[in-house]
């Protein structure tokens, strides 16, 4: 059992302290480094909160896509997908659904790394 507040909540609070209290007090040449630290903490916090659910959704979406393409025996992960695309082994019928799947996976990644890019 993890004590409260959990890791994600601690990172968020630490990030807020960095941005609101420390950043204004830092010399201007250190502001960029402080913003990078805040960004890294934000990514880490979002991963703790959302990653499991996003990974589960991604695996399900890849599995459904592979089944539709008649390739259900393969592992439902990005390595498989990348290899099938590179080796041009996806049937023509699945080409239309591919961009939608890729966009879904990419949205998941952006939800962790930079959710503002999605807005």
């Amino acid at each position, binding site marked *: 059992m993890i004590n409260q507040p959990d890791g994600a909540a601690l990172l968020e609070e630490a990030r807020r302290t960095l941005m609101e209290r420390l950043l204004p007090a830092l010399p201007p040449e250190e502001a960029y*480094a402080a913003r*990078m630290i805040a960004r890294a903490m934000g990514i880490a916090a979002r991963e703790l909160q959302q990653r499991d659910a996003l990974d589960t959704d991604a695996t399900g979406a890849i599995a459904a896509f592979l089944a539709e393409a008649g390739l259900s025996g393969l592992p439902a*992960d*990005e390595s498989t997908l990348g290899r099938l*695309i590179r080796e041009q082994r996806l049937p023509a019928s699945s080409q239309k659904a591919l961009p939608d799947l890729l*966009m879904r996976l*990419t*949205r998941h990644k952006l939800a962790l790394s*930079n959710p503002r*890019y999605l807005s």
Partner: protein
Amino acid sequence: MTAPEQALAGYLRRQCGAQSAEVLEFSRLTGGAIQDNHALTVRMTGGSHPGEHRLVVRSDAPSRIASSLGRVQEFHILEAAHAAGLTVPQPLWLCEDTSVLGRHFFIMRRAPGTSAPRAFLRGALGAEQARSLTRRLGEELARLHRVHPPRPELEFLTRPDAPPAFHRIRVCQEALRRIADPHPVLEWALDWLAGHAPVSHDLALCHCDFRTGNYMVHEGRLSAVLDWEFAAWSDPYEDLGWLCCRSWRFGAPEREVGGLGDKLDLFAGYESVSGRPVDARRVEYWEVVGLVRWAIIALQQAGRHLSGEEPSLELALTGRMVPEMEFDLINQIGRLESTPPEASLP
């Protein structure tokens, strides 16, 4: 005077036949993971260059990206660009004698102004200034693209053995193979690029990193095109596509030319010098190339952190920017697929 200052003063005295050379300023300039830049101000008496000179000393940095040119080659590129009439810092002296500074360096004039995008994007310039600067970027590129192979002084630049788009695709594919993590979006984009590549064999001298952040602006006008270390013989459209690529708009995505202006103005400037109409669709194709290329560079930068070769939060975070390029790739390819070629004019 510090040891490098003394060495440079002595070098300039010999180079210019000066009676004296006094270093008034020698300080590190920002930027450059692959080269060191120092501002140098000297006052010389006698010889070929009497008076005060504001200069930049550009030398090889200890670490280097494999695909970039060294300073000796970059000096020759800069000379070719200067001779072609581009707005570049005038290249003055190249020193291949490593006993002076311990590595190769060249000296060029220091241009006034700044390359920091925030100083001239997002309303920092008036609308007319931004338009004329955008047009000017087109004129500059067209001037550069008048330089065609063969050029004996640029014989170190290899000529691609396939149409430039295919060459670039192959280089990206090979780089992607060397990256451990899977990147299905990049694989898919490379597949699309291969299926839509222009078969043009046009080759011209290309800057290959011509984007906002790599040119200087002074009082609203272009003062210098910088950073020539990725120059290559390529399809001239590669430079137009890289400049317009979604990744280099610095928070102003609606301004398609580097966050600064509109394609119509860029193309008008280009056409006024080249005398040939710009094919907007082909620019968009090369924007897709640009997104893939930048994504792979970002993965390589993250790789330098991951391998322990150069632990750095900045490099690590660059790797986490790749989904942004992938998002743009899916959208841009989708747009190109859904618009017929004749409807793509800006």
